[in-house]
């Protein structure tokens, strides 16, 4: 058994893996959250640094070429610093300089292409290169993350956003499956893998919240765009989630004329210190069609005429609600309720209303909420 040990050591050495010659304790690996802290504070510092540069060298930053070249110089400086330094402070500084440089380059590119797909493709290329060359694990991970987001934006610009998560997932799986293929590069692969994983989560999050980061109209162009839903499904095999609220179908927001009158009455007598939320009663009179007309706000115990009713209202953030502010119906039944003009309530002895049904302007029944 013993004669094999040197050969194993030799093979490891050949593969470029440092083996402890004696029994010195190797320092434990840096935990991931320390890297996160490093990335976070580097990013924060980069923002201030960029602000400083923008104020000192405003004329340089304003010209496209100036900000591009300044950004490139800062990236080179960061690269050099990463190579030279072995200390944490140096690595930290390099990270901040690099992030500020990236922001400057991105700024210059925005001047050239506005926010078009080209911009994101170029940024994707930049981040890819940085992820490959920058000799820092934090930076590699961050660049992989930024690259995956850039990929998503680039694809979304050509209305192919749903493909992005599939592509990233593919790259991620390929990376983790080959984690140990290149023994010297195991940490690199891990950094890329973590970065892409976070990127994938962000992309999925954006897709599920309806792409809140996208402030443009994605126009569908060409055959690729028509194919994207299929591509996305084939790659990820996840059904699209209905962006409507999780809880059931559609609803119609309700706003009754009576609510507005109650609100006006409240506003007219209210001083600034009045709460924006309260419960109270209004007195309404029923006309011959039994449509409620606002009379006054109820003050204490007052006697009611035979055609008057006490009605409980709730003031919430300056909005008056009678029972509910929404009428719920099954998904796709919206047209049926569009002509709604009246709501029918049941009122109990305490004046608590319950919305029963919606009616059109002729008081014909459209649909009931309680069957």
């Amino acid at each position, binding site marked *: 058994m013993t004669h094999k040990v040197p050969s194993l050591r030799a093979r490891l050495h050949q593969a470029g893996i440092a083996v402890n010659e004696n029994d010195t304790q190797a320092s434990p690996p840096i935990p991931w959250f320390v890297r996160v802290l490093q990335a976070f504070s580097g990013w924060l510092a980069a923002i*201030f640094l960029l602000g400083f540069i923008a104020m000192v060298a405003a004329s340089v930053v304003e010209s496209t070429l100036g900000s591009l070249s300044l950004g490139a110089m800062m990236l080179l400086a960061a690269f050099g610093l990463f190579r030279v330094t072995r200390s944490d*402070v140096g690595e930290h*500084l390099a990270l901040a300089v690099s992030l500020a440089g990236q922001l400057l380059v991105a700024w210059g590119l925005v001047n050239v292409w506005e926010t078009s797909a080209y911009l994101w493709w170029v940024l994707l290329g930049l981040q890819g290169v940085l992820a490959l060359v920058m000799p820092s694990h934090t930076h590699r991970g961050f660049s992989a993350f930024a690259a995956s987001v850039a990929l998503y934006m680039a694809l979304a610009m050509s209305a192919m956003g749903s493909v992005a998560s599939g592509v990233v997932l593919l790259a991620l799986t390929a990376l983790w499956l080959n984690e140990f293929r290149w023994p010297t590069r195991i940490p690199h692969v891990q950094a890329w893998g973590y970065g892409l994983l976070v990127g994938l989560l962000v992309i999925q999050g954006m897709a599920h919240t309806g792409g809140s980061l996208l402030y443009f109209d994605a126009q569908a162009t060409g055959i690729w765009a028509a194919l994207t839903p299929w591509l996305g499904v084939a790659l990820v095999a996840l059904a699209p989630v209905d962006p409507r609220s999780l809880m*059931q179908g559609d609803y119609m927001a309700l706003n009754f004329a009576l609510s507005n009158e109650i609100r006006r009455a409240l506003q007219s007598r209210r001083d600034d210190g009045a709460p924006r939320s309260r419960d109270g009663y209004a007195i309404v009179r029923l006309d011959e069609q039994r449509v409620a007309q606002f009379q006054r706000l109820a003050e204490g115990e007052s006697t009611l005429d035979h055609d008057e009713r006490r009605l409980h209202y709730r003031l919430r953030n300056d909005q008056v609600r009678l*029972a509910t502010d929404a009428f719920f119906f099954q998904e796709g039944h919206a047209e049926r309720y569009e002509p709604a003009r009246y709501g029918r309530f049941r009122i109990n002895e305490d004046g608590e209303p319950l919305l029963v049904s919606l009616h059109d302007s002729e008081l014909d029944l459209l649909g009931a909420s309680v069957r």
Partner: protein
Amino acid sequence: MRGGGVIDRLLLWLGGLALTFAVLFFVAYNWAELGRWPRFGLVQAALVLAVGVAVWGNTQRWVARAALTAASLLVGVLLALLGQVYQSGADPWQLFFVWAMLVLPWVLVSRFELLWLAWLALLNTALWLYFRTWGGALDVWFVSSDATFWWLFVLNTTALVVGEWGVRRRRWRVSRWTLRILALSSGVPITLLMMTLIVDATAFYMPALGVYPLWLAALYGGYRYWRPDLLLVAGGCVSLICVVTLGLARRLLWQGDWQSGSLLMLALAVLVMGAGAVVWLKRLNTETPS
């Protein structure tokens, strides 16, 4: 559980959740066709079934837990259904609060951390919505009302303290991640309160001046010496960096005039603090490898 336990468990959970949501979506998509009684009947039958499985079904712990989780979710579905059918217009916070109260017995008997966390999340949501409804005048997202963050802080800190006490004295088996999540949900509100105090120094936030250092000291003492957990110490560092940076920014930028030098100073301060934290955490890491 045998060797293939992970897959079994995963399938159990996915199956339980899928069944629960199937009930939800079945009712929603057949709203017009189902009358009032079938709607309620369906959800209630599913609820009884889930509880039945938990009580009389298989004696395996995980099956009971999955069944109780499904039952807890179904209570929420039932409450939402109640609100939709009888559009009585209860305030949203009431839904979450009643939901939390109703499922509390099951949460207690299930002895299941994830269900406890979900229950706490329900309470947090109820508190948040309550103050959205009855809260104060400030509508900035981060001060959506004055008292929310105080109450969230109190609630989550209490949960954290109880959890740690249980682990220490009662030998509860609580995973470290549960406690980390609790510590995070206690740290975020107090940090935001402190940052609000810096931006807007009104008397209402003044207690933060005393509470925040105490909280930091407790975090440090607790998770450096008592139960070492470097992740939480790192979280405290992030919180402190945020607060100090905002304080410096307010001094240098708001009150002083905008000078380029002050931006550079801020950048340097953040760099120094970040690098210092990293160096320190690395040293702690070599001292106490977790």
